[in-house]
C-alpha cells in the first residue's frame, strides 16, 4: 500500500519523564497518517518484502511453515529479541524450531500509523513495556489461522486446536499446517480482545531457551554497523569540538587533500569536521594530520574541580526539587537524639560499547537511506529526516546489529553527522565511524552527582528521619526539558521515588529526598542503570552506616525498614539466605548487602570479599536476586545479571571521566579501564518472579545498581574504611 505522508511537521513527544524511563527522549517524529487513513481492510493482504503474507503485523508465515516474528525493539545483547519472539510464539502456538525474526523499519512504522508502536529500546522496557501487545499479536494470528482452517473444512473453529504450527480438527482428525492456511488467514479480520494465556500455562515463554541470534556471532558472519559494505561506499572519520557545546572555527583542507585515498574534507554541522576517503584508515590518518581551529566556548573553563565545587554548593542550597517526602524530616532531624551524616559522590562515566558509534547514509534529493545500529529506530528516523531536510516519505532507516548500546545508542548525534556528510556527496553512500577516542570524548556521560545524607534516631535507636539531598546533573533537563515536572526531573530519583517502577524501598517516618539541579557543559545521558546506579550507592552504603549507628545488623536493620515492602524484603532475604548471612563467613572473608527497586524489578546483592594490604580486593562470590514479576527467559536473565556485575563493578573500580580545560581526559581503554576475565567474580543469580498484577519489571539494568554498594559495604566490614567517592582507583584500591 502507498500512503502519501502529510509533509507538515506536526510533532509529538513520546513518553513522559519517568514513564519514558531510561530513554525518555523528546522525540520529534513527523506525523504519519492517522490510524483511519492507514486502516487495512480485511480483504487486503499485506505482504513482506519477499511477498509472504502478514497474518498480523507481528507475524508473517511462509508456505514452508517458517514463522517470521517482527521485533520492534533493538537487540543489543540483552536478549530482548529472543524474549519477545518467545512471547509471540507462545500465543501463536507455533513450532519454535521454525521461528525467525526481522526488524520492521522505522519508515514502515511511520507509514502504518505506528502499528508496531514504540521502537525505543532503553529503560529495560524492551519486554516489560510491550509484552501485552506482542502477545495479543500472536494470539490474534493464531485465532485467524484456526478460523481459516475451520473455514476450509466448513467446521466450527471451536472444534479445532492449534499446536506446534499444526491445526487439527479434533472430531475428524484432519490437520493442516500454518503455512498452508496463512494466505487465507491473512484475509480475515484481525480479532480484538483475544484472551491471553495464563503464564502458568506457558510452554515457550518462561523457559530457558537458547537465543535465536548466536551463530552469526561465532563465525564473523554477523554484520554490525561498522561492517556494512555498499557499492561505491566511501568512509568517513570525524572530529567534533573537543569541548562539548563548542564549535568549529576553521580547518585547512589543503594540508591533507592530496593524501592517499582522500576524497573530501567537510564541515559537519557547526562543530565538527570530517575526512571522507576510500578507506576508513586513510580518512582517520588524514584527519589526524588536519589542522583544525576550535571555538571551545564557555565549557573550556570547566574542570573536575570546578564542577565538584558547584555540586558541593548544591548539597546545602536552599532551593531543591522534592522527589519524595513524608512527615517532617527537617523537624524530626532537629529534635533527634542522635544524627548521622555523610557525603557521597559519583563521577561522569562513558558507556564505551565495544562498537564505536557509526552510521551509514546515502542521500539524493529524492531519497535518503540510513543504516544504523540504534537503540531507537524512530529517533534515528527523526534525526535523519531533520538533518536531510526531506519529507518523511523520502526517508528510510534500516536498523543494523548493535555492538552494545548501554544507552549511548539511544542518542542520534552520529546519525545527524552521517546524514550531514552524505548530503554533501549526493548519490554516494558514506559510512561514518568514530574512533574510540572520539567516542570516549564525545559521550553522553553518566550524570555526575553528589549526595549528602542525614539520618536521625530517637532515644530507642529507632530511625525517625532521613534527608537525602542529591546535587548534580539532570538528564531530562538536557535531553527533553519539556518532560520536566515544574522544573523537577523525576528520573533523577530512580530507586528513591514515590511508589512505582522506581519506588523507594524503605519506610521512614520522616523522609525528604530532594535534588539541587546542577548541570554542566558535559552532556549527560542514560547510562545502563542510569540514576539508580549512584542512588543505590548513596542510599545503601548510608543505610549500612545507619545500621552501625543503631548498633544493628545490616540485614536486620533493613528487614525492619522493609516491613511494608515485601518484595524488597523478599529479594533481600533470598540473597541473605543463599550467602549464609546467619552463619559466620570464612576467616578473612567479609560480607555486604544492598537492595533496591529499579525499572520495575526488585533486586538485591550479597557480596563476599577479602582484602589484602588494605587495598586489594578479591571478590569471592556474589549472590544476586531479581524479582521481575514474570521471567520470560530465565537463562538470559542469569546472563544479564552476571553481565550487570561486570558493568557495575567496572564502574566501581575504574569508571571515571575527569575534565580538564573542558575536555574529557580519558581517551581510550588504557585510561578508561574495564574489567577483564581475571577480575570476574562468581555470580550466582537467583531469578525469583513472584507474579501478581503489578507491571512487569525489566532485566537489562536493575541489578547493576546493587553491585557497587554490596562490595563497598563488605569493604567497610573488612577494613573499617568507608569509601564514599567512586571509583576505587582514585583511592589506590584495586582488584587483588
Amino acid at each position, binding site marked *: 500500500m502507498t500512503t502519501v505522508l502529510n509533509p507538515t511537521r506536526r510533532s509529538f513527544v513520546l513518553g513522559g519523564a519517568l514513564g519514558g524511563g531510561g530513554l525518555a527522549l523528546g522525540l520529534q517524529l513527523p506525523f504519519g497518517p492517522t490510524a483511519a487513513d492507514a486502516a487495512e481492510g480485511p480483504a487486503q493482504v499485506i505482504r513482506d518484502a519477499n511477498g509472504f503474507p502478514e497474518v498480523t503485523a507481528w507475524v508473517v508465515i511462509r508456505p514452508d511453515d517458517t514463522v517470521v516474528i517482527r521485533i520492534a525493539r533493538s537487540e*543489543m*545483547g*540483552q*536478549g530482548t529479541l529472543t524474549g519477545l519472539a518467545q512471547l509471540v510464539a507462545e500465543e501463536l502456538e507455533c513450532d519454535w524450531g521454525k521461528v525467525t525474526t526481522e526488524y520492521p523499519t522505522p519508515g514502515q512504522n511511520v507509514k502504518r500509523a505506528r502499528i508496531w508502536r514504540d521502537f525505543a529500546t532503553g529503560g529495560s522496557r524492551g519486554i516489560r513495556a510491550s509484552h501485552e501487545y506482542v502477545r495479543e499479536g500472536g494470539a490474534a494470528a493464531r485465532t485467524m489461522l484456526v478460523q481459516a482452517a475451520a473455514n476450509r473444512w466448513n467446521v466450527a473453529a471451536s472444534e479445532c486446536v492449534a499446536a506446534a504450527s499444526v491445526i487439527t480438527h479434533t472430531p475428524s482428525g484432519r490437520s493442516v499446517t500454518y503455512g498452508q492456511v496463512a494466505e487465507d488467514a491473512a484475509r480475515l479480520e484481525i480479532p480484538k480482545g483475544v484472551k491471553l494465556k495464563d503464564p502458568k500455562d506457558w510452554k515457550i515463554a518462561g523457559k530457558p531457551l*537458547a*537465543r535465536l*541470534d*548466536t*551463530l*552469526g*556471532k*561465532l*563465525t*564473523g*558472519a*554477523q*554484520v*554490525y554497523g*561498522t*561492517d556494512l*559494505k555498499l557499492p561505491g561506499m566511501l*568512509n568517513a572519520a570525524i572530529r567534533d569540538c573537543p569541548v562539548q557545546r563548542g564549535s568549529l572555527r576553521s580547518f585547512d583542507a589543503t594540508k591533507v587533500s592530496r593524501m*592517499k585515498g582522500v576524497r573530501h574534507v567537510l564541515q559537519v554541522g557547526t562543530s565538527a569536521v570530517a575526512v571522507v576517503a576510500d*578507506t*576508513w*584508515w586513510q580518512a582517520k590518518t588524514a584527519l589526524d594530520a588536519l589542522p583544525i581551529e576550535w571555538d571551545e566556548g564557555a565549557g573550556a573553563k570547566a574542570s573536575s574541580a570546578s564542577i565538584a565545587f558547584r555540586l558541593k554548593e548544591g548539597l546545602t542550597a536552599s532551593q531543591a526539587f522534592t522527589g519524595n517526602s513524608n512527615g517532617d524530616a527537617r523537624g524530626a532531624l532537629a529534635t533527634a537524639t542522635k544524627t548521622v551524616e555523610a557525603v557521597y559522590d559519583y563521577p561522569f562515566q562513558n558507556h*564505551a*560499547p*565495544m*562498537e*564505536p558509534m557509526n552510521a551509514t547514509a546515502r542521500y539524493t534529493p529524492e531519497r535518503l537511506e540510513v543504516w544504523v545500529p540504534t537503540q531507537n529506530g524512530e529517533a534515528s528516523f527523526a534525526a535523519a529526516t531533520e538533518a536531510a531536510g526531506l519529507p518523511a516519505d523520502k526517508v528510510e532507516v534500516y536498523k543494523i*546489529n*548493535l*555492538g*552494545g*548500546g*548501554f544507552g549511548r545508542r539511544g542518542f542520534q548525534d552520529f546519525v545527524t553527522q552521517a546524514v550531514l556528510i552524505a548530503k554533501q556527496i549526493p548519490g554516494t553512500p558514506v559510512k561514518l*565511524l568514530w*574512533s*574510540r577516542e572520539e567516542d570516549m570524548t564525545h559521550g553522553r556521560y553518566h550524570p555526575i552527582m553528589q549526595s549528602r545524607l542525614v539520618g536521625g534516631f530517637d532515644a530507642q535507636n529507632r530511625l525517625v528521619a532521613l534527608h537525602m539531598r542529591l546535587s548534580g546533573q539532570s538528564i531530562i533537563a538536557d535531553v527533553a526539558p519539556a518532560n520536566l515536572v515544574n522544573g523537577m526531573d523525576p528520573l533523577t530519583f530512580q530507586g528513591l521515588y514515590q511508589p512505582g517502577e522506581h519506588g523507594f524501598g524503605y519506610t521512614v517516618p520522616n523522609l525528604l529526598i530532594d535534588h539541587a539541579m546542577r548541570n554542566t557543559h558535559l552532556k549527560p545521558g542514560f547510562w545502563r542503570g542510569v540514576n539508580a546506579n549512584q542512588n543505590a550507592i548513596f542510599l545503601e552504603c548510608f543505610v549500612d552506616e545507619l545500621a552501625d549507628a543503631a548498633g544493628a545488623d545490616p540485614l536486620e536493620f533493613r528487614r525492619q525498614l522493609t516491613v511494608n515492602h515485601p518484595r524488597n524484603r523478599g529479594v533481600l532475604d533470598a540473597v541473605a539466605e543463599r550467602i549464609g548471612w546467619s552463619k559466620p563467613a570464612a576467616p578473612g572473608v567479609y560480607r555486604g548487602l544492598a537492595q533496591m527497586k529499579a525499572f520495575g524489578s526488585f533486586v538485591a546483592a550479597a557480596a563476599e570479599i577479602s582484602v589484602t594490604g588494605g587495598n586489594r580486593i578479591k571478590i569471592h562470590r556474589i549472590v544476586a536476586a531479581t524479582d521481575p514479576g514474570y521471567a520470560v527467559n530465565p*537463562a538470559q536473565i542469569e*546472563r*544479564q545479571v*552476571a*553481565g*550487570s556485575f*561486570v*558493568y557495575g563493578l*567496572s564502574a566501581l573500580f575504574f569508571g571515571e571521566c575527569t575534565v580538564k580545560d573542558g575536555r574529557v581526559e580519558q581517551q*581510550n*581503554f*588504557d585510561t578508561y579501564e*574495564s*574489567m*577483564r*576475565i*581475571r577480575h*570476574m567474580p*562468581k*555470580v550466582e543469580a537467583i531469578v525469583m518472579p513472584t507474579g501478581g498484577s503489578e507491571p512487569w519489571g525489566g532485566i537489562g539494568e536493575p541489578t547493576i545498581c546493587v553491585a557497587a554498594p554490596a562490595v563497598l559495604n563488605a569493604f567497610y566490614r573488612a577494613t573499617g574504611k568507608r569509601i564514599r567517592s567512586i571509583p576505587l582507583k582514585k583511592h589506590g584500591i584495586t582488584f587483588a
Partner: protein
Amino acid sequence: MIAFSVNGKAQSIDADPTTPLLWILREQVGLTGTKYGCGIAQCGACTVHLEGAPVRSCSIPVAAVAGRSITTIEGLAKDNKLHKVQQAWLDHQVPQCGYCQSGMIMAAAALLNQIPKPTDAQIDDNITNICRCGTFQQVRQAIHAAAAA
C-alpha cells in the same frame, strides 16, 4: 604490494605498509569478522592468529606480516564444522551483543592450542579481552568445556 596469506588463501595487497593489519583485513581483504574496538591493543576485539599465535591486529603494521600466514575468525571453522571453541560458545550461549566475541574466541582457541587444559589461573593470565556486556562467566565455562571436548 605486500603478500601474505589469510585463512590459507594468498593475498597481495597494495597499501601503505604502516597500515594496521586490522584495517587491511577489514577494508581490503574484505573480512569484517575481526573488529575494531580501541586501536591501541587494549581490548582484543581485533585478535587474529599470526602463525598460530594470538595477536592484536590493530597494532601490527601490515608490512610486518609479509610472507606470513594469518587466521581470522572466518577461517576458524573447518569443513563447515564449528571449531570446538565455537561449539562450546554455542552450547554455553556465551555471546550477548557479540561484537567482542570474534576476538574472544580467537584468544581462547589460541590458548587451547598452547595449553590444552588450562586452569582458571591460566585463563585469567591469557584471556585479556574486554567485553562490556560482561560475558566472562560464560566465557570461562565455555573454555573449560572446549578443553574437555
